[in-house]
């Protein structure tokens, strides 16, 4: 019987296998940031251990850094960032600090440097590590104990998750994006739909996505509960990687591509679970509730809790509507927002900024609008194209790189009761600031919403 892509990559990394034990899996790349690493380095020091492979490790400052120039004013955040700098220096780990040309959100810089490649195993103390699966890598988030384990051993003990295929048949209609696709998938399978599985996104609509779009899809695998999400590498992948600083070159490139071409699910391989999605039926998608599975087409209305047959879903919907301050039956297009956020590891790449700029060109925003590039590299590229001038002319704020308003641990937050249209990945209660209300949207919907002040698709303008 053939093997799935996930099984091939997994098998390639098994250091040791023994009956009744998890596999010991080799980790090709370990990404680190300031929030989930300090206690791991402390653990190493207390046990007298060292970092086994600092040259397979890279660190950046992203979660709690401000996105305006200047020092970190919050002393607790500053201590955390300074702790990362001290740890990186002590253990010999490459770090991209604030202000550095290579700094950015951890899941943006890996692919940007060409460090993320097909067939690799990649981990980070951050659940959106699944982003890197877009290259055909097995990439997943880990906790601080596991960060310490990878630092010390460059391996992780783990049971191989089950495999799941999400087959996206047909083509996405014009105006429907990768973000709409993944939000629709999560609404269909639920926040627990992928638990215990590595999801492989397949089908014509997935093949036609750019690398940026594929990263958006894989990024939100965790929001469907999946351990990881991946997409088989192809010419789109190879073209993205060619010439990047850490991509192979010369003969190594040819050998690598030959290997990467074998990284696809065999025709006779069997997945543990298969879900089919018809791309042609999709439209711009937004969330109305407090988990990423509580979403609906923008053209529809806030659902009534009675629509949910399952009592758990029904009570979750009741609670969500109360928190979100929404009434069942309200058209989603009538929902007014106070803030628009374009950025994050989900939608903070150059293609996302181009899409937002295209809509904002020659228009004015009526809400507070934050445009936050995912990395200093993305910022530079955007400025070379003049996108920053488009944003500024529209009245939006053009910021420095960071996680920004995706999570409420830096100065970019919502106030209690404020409502946002956000290109990030989580609409959890308080995620963007205590009492804040979040609607997850694509960069295109975010930009159109900034123009009208209500949830809006570009086609509505």
């Amino acid at each position, binding site marked *: 019987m053939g093997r799935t892509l996930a099984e091939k990559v997994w098998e390639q990394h098994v250091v040791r296998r023994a009956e009744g034990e998890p596999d010991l899996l080799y980790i090709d790349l370990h990404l680190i940031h300031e929030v989930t690493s300090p206690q791991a380095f402390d653990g190493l020091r207390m046990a007298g251990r060292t970092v086994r492979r600092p040259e397979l490790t890279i660190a950046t400052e992203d979660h709690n850094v401000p996105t305006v120039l200047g020092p970190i004013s919050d002393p607790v955040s500053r201590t955390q960032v300074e702790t990362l700098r001290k740890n990186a220096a002590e253990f010999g780990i490459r770090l991209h600090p604030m202000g550095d040309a290579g700094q950015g959100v951890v899941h943006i810089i890996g692919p940007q440097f060409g*460090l993320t490649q097909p067939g690799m195993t990649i981990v980070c103390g951050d*659940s959106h590590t699944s982003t890197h699966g877009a290259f055909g890598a097995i990439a997943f988030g880990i906790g601080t104990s596991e960060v310490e384990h990878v630092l010390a051993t460059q391996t992780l003990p783990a*049971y191989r998750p089950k495999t799941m295929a999400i087959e996206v048949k047909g083509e996405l209609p014009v105006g429907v994006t990768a973000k709409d696709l993944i939000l629709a998938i999560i609404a269909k399978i639920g926040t627990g739909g992928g638990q215990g599985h590595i999801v492989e996104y397949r089908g014509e609509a997935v093949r036609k996505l750019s690398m940026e779009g594929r990263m958006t899809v894989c990024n939100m695998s965790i929001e469907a509960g999946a351990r990881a999400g991946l997409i088989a590498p192809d010419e789109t992948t190879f073209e993205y990687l060619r010439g990047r600083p850490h991509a192979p070159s010369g003969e190594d490139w040819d050998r690598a591509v030959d290997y990467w071409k074998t990284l696809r699910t065999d025709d006779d391989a069997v997945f543990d679970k298969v879900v089919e999605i018809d791309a042609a039926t999709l439209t711009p998608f937004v969330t109305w509730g*407090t988990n990423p599975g509580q979403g609906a087409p923008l053209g529809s209305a806030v659902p009534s809790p009675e629509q949910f047959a399952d009592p*758990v879903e029904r009570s979750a919907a009741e609670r969500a509507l109360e928190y979100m301050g929404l009434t069942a039956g309200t058209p989603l297009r009538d929902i007014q927002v106070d803030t628009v956020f374009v950025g994050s590891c989900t939608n903070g790449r150059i293609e996302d900024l181009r899409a937002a700029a295209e809509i904002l060109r020659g228009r004015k925003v009526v809400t507070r609008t934050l445009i936050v590039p995912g990395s200093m590299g993305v910022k530079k590229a955007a400025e070379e194209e003049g996108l920053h001038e488009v944003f500024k002319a529209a009245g939006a704020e053009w910021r420095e790189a960071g996680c920004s308003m995706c999570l409420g641990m830096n100065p970019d937050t919502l106030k209690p009761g404020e409502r946002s249209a956000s290109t990030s990945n*989580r609409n959890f209660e308080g995620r963007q600031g205590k009492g804040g209300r979040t609607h997850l949207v694509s960069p295109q919907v975010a930009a159109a919403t900034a123009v009208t002040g209500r949830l809006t698709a570009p086609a509505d303008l």
Partner: protein
Amino acid sequence: MDAFTTHTGRAVPLRRSNVDTDQIIPAVWLKQVSRTGFEKGLFAAWREDPSFVLNDPAYEGASILVSGPDFGTGSSREHAVWALQQYGFRVVIASRFGDIFRNNSTKMGLLPVVLPEDVVKRLQDAAEADPKTEITVDLVERQVRSGDLVASFEIDDYTRWRLLEGLDDIGLTLRHADAIEEYENGRQPWLPTTV
């Protein structure tokens, strides 16, 4: 890690689903560089509501959290586990857990117990009817017992052994340093390094 064999304690019924780790400990609490003091941040936003179950003095000192499905979804923050433990919880019972949270728990000795939704509801009902109801979680027998309720739960042998012995994963892995080195010698030369 603390060893876990059998634990008997009172339970807190948390009748909510999709209890993401942002609720268990909001991001603003993650700025600490130490491993202690997270109990103050446990369910920080929800605890501001006087009617939230953890504010009910009847449940003071309870050590088993019985939650609705999909507990610990979302962010990978292990701080969620630290907060629960430092508050005094030894066990979380739910019908489904987020994968990363479950992993993090077993690394720290907080036992995540998966039981069918109807059994979870019976335990919640019992804890609500009488907050003094005791629940025994027996990892040796892989059983949860309370009054006349006896429910078996599954946990893989390896994780169970590690929890029973209180063993640290890193020490176990370093016993296989030779296998790691051998694997490293066979890695493809084109694989990237960060230098």
